């Protein structure tokens, strides 16, 4: 059952990723990306990381995608013009990426391991919360500072007149 779910989700994720990177219309790309993010959330659930899966949907598919769509609408982007520079870039990119896949694949596929039994309460809010506020407390606070900086930066950069 889980395996079936995995393969379905895998297909969905990969297909939607392909749509993201190939479709001319940025709105369609954004939609496809949202779909992809949700399937990844599915993966998280399969791996019993419920909290993270939830966050994925809330933050990524919810906030970030909306933000991107906002900007697309704001700039009124319809479609991307075709590249006038020649296909060398495209072919080289595909070639090199194929190489990348091969290298990574070789490293990954040769590791035969199995999932150990999940510890009790793995992936629950409580578990993650404990880890977050105990060992990783300082990074947590610093991240909040980072968010403030990002906010300020975004506002400043996007202003019409300083």
């Amino acid at each position, binding site marked *: 059952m889980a395996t079936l779910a995995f393969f379905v989700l895998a297909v969905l994720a990969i297909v939607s990723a392909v749509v993201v990177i190939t479709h001319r219309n940025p709105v369609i790309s954004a939609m496809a990306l949202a779909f992809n993010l949700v399937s990844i959330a599915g993966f998280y659930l399969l791996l019993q990381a419920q909290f993270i899966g939830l966050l994925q949907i809330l933050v990524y598919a919810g906030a970030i995608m909306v933000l991107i769509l906002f*900007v697309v609408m704001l700039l009124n982007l319809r479609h991307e013009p075709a590249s006038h520079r020649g296909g060398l870039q495209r072919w080289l990119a595909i070639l090199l990426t194929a190489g990348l896949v091969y290298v990574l694949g070789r490293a990954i596929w040769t590791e035969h391991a199995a999932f150990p039994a*999940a510890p009790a309460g793995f992936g629950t809010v409580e578990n993650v919360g404990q880890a977050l506020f105990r060992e990783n407390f300082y990074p947590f606070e610093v991240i909040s500072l980072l968010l403030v900086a990002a906010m300020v930066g975004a506002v400043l950069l996007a202003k019409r007149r300083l």
Partner: protein
Amino acid sequence: MALEPRFFLMVSAILFSLGVVGVLTRRGAITILMCVELMLNAGNLAFITFARQAGQQGADGQVYVFFIMTLAAAEAAVGLAIVIALFRLRDTTDVDDVNLLKW
């Protein structure tokens, strides 16, 4: 057939590579940002897989994913702000038009 970590990692690798191709191939700035999000997500998937594999220390892995998500959000916000500013200047989001840093 039981689920093995390497399945998830393989998917993660493929998604990551697709993101790379997208970054290198597309010309719209926003689309490129979307592909970057794709790459980040692939990385997150790998993290969670390893966290699940790690057992008791796995909670730390999820915390890192938490952080990455936060960072991605901040980066998306700032990146989009830059795109808007550039659009105001050049009236286009085509990255090929931003080509002054050359010989």
